[in-house]
């Protein structure tokens, strides 16, 4: 019973929906047949030379092996062609009441920088228009990195721009100087992440040697997580920040002094 009612209701709703849909269409009048815009009056007795409205190559610079798209529109031509082997791109009967429009596009794969010349002609004369496709050598095939070679790698940028956050002995609280370091880091990271959309940062947690390796591994974890949470609160994208604790396994110095110990009590940033 209930099921039947429900399905009946659904059917009714569907029908009403379709009915509404049909009704809407009815009042929409078909647009009046507008005269072609090319109907601008042209003096008939004198045959004007064809007009190349545009002839472009997009993009105009490509890496070897990539495609560039040639696009054109020519009016008033009886015949039009492009050199470099592309040949005739269109013909129109002469003396039509309205000027013929020849338009189109073609992908080209030049292996070297090439100039394409479009030639359009009619009884009134000939017009040419040229575009050049610049071809550059592709980067070495081995590295498919999105960053071109002259640009610093993501890892280099992180190493150069992002500073360590330092901690007190046996603590993972973000202290005042670390707060400053991390705030500066957050601004820089936002910019760097924009410039390098595929880079990920690993926040390493380190500890000094004065503690058990086991406890320090847990402490390093806390330090990395604390630094990460601080950055995320400042709006740095959380899914691009990973943590990795080394505890006291990878100290950056091994002297038996507070200067060295302080250097090792850190959250350190690396980019991948």
């Amino acid at each position, binding site marked *: 019973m209930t099921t039947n009612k429900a399905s009946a209701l659904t059917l009714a709703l569907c029908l009403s929906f379709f009915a509404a849909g049909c009704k809407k269409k009815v009042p929409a009048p078909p647009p009046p047949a507008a005269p072609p815009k090319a109907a601008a009056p042209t003096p008939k007795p004198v045959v004007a030379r064809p007009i190349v409205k545009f002839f472009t190559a997009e993009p105009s610079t490509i890496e070897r092996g990539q495609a560039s798209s040639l696009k054109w529109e020519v009016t008033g031509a009886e015949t039009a062609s492009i050199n470099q082997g592309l040949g005739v791109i269109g013909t129109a009967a002469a003396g039509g009441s309205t000027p013929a429009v020849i338009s189109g596009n073609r992908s080209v794969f030049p292996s070297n920088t090439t100039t394409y010349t479009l030639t359009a002609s009619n009884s009134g004369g000939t017009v040419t228009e040229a575009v050049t496709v610049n071809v550059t050598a592709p980067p070495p095939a081995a590295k498919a990195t999105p960053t071109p070679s002259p640009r610093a790698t993501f890892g280099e940028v992180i190493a150069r721009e992002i500073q360590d956050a330092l901690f007190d*002995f*046996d603590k*993972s609280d973000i202290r005042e100087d670390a707060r400053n370091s991390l705030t500066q880091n957050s601004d820089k990271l936002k910019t760097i992440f924009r410039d390098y959309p595929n880079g990920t940062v690993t926040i390493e947690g380190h500890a*000094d*040697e*004065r*503690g*058990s*390796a*086991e*406890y320090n*591994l*847990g*402490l*390093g*974890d*806390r330090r*990395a*997580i604390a630094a990460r949470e601080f950055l995320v609160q400042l709006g740095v994208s959380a899914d691009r920040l990973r*943590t*990795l*604790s*080394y*505890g006291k*396994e*990878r100290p950056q110095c091994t002297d038996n002094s507070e200067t060295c110990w302080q250097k090792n009590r850190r959250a350190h940033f690396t980019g991948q």
Partner: protein
Amino acid sequence: MKNIIFSLLTLAVVPVQAFAQQRPDIIGVIMGSQKAVIAVPDMRGAGRASGLMDIVNGTLFRDLEDAAIFKMAPKSMYPTRVPQQPQEFRKPLQYDPTNRNAAPWLQDWSDPPVNSDYLAFGYAAEQDNQIVLFGWLFNVRQPEVAAAQVLGKIYFGPIDETGARKVAHEFAADILKQFGVESLAGSKVYFVSNRSGSKEIWSMDYDGASQKQITSYKSISTMPSVSPDGSRIAFTSWAMGQPQILVHSLETLRRIPFLNPRAGTNQNASYTADGKQIAFSSSASGFSQIYMANADGSGVRRLSNSRAVEVEPKINPKTGNEIVFVSGRGGGSPQVYRMNSDGADVQRLTTGEGQATNPSWNPQGTHIAFAWTRGYDPGNFNIFVMDVNTREFVQLTSGAGRNENPVWAPDGKHIVFSSDRGGRGQIWTMLADGTQLRQLTSAGINEKPAWSK
């Protein structure tokens, strides 16, 4: 303080009483003095065995001395006439120790200056390309040769250094068995060494012989823990990126599956006595906390619940219902705590002074050994032993470098630990009273020992 040591050392003596019910002479000796006195004169070897006798004699002496149930009679007091087999004993009509022409007799060993209770003797020979060791243990307090023999057995091994060590270990193990003591000779110490260029897991005999590399991840692999049956080893490794727990079979040396919880750090695996469960610490919650899982990592459950770093859970091997661990709760430096195996009834065991880490249960489940900086600067750990019930503790090392990761031997009387007293971190053993220090490693830096049956 002294009571702790005394009770630890006497624990091992208890089984001797059981044995002594069949051999009242042994109990008499044991109860008469703290330790039975044993004389172990150097044995001689024939043929190619002669070149191996330094190893045989050295291994036998060390195994017996290391067992810590004997007082070793001083070698310089030994009589000149040393028997090689029982037939050489001739009971004199009138015992005269000054008679240089007399045959060997039991009293040569039981009388002053040797004052021994037992004599281990014998000889070795080469036979069918094997070393054959004939070994006897005599109770020299007996009036007759017939009553004196406690043990007489023949041992075989390949005629090389390995064989020499094998026959000596077996002879020592049989002697110890007479006193209800399981020899450490078959036991292994697993440890971490960087000698290959990266931290890998290694193994060696309990006396430092036959050091072998177990893993080769060329990453950081550390903190090994062996299953009680000795078939598996769990450790913490960066081989997969973040520090995670890996388990290897010690039979095939291959990796076997362990499901790590999703966490930045999973570490410090340790087995329950039945080998079916693993306790470990994981930062899955954001803080390193104590967890328990099945031996393959399934069925994970969280045991501790704090906003502090908590690591190194160790399950009481005797009762299974108690866990000691290290926690920084309360905002202080790490201390050793205990809790029930369901996480209830958390109590701090150490005083709150210094940093206290690396707890390890003795096999009897009564005492823990641990590393503590109490009385020293941060990081300068010494080895302590604590009676978990009374919380009485005693310091075993002092003022000699950083001493860490004490782990009990299967006999409950020895402790293996790491110390940098010689400059670099090395593996050492000592008795649970802090004596009989021995250095087992010397190549590279070595740490994180684990002792397995």
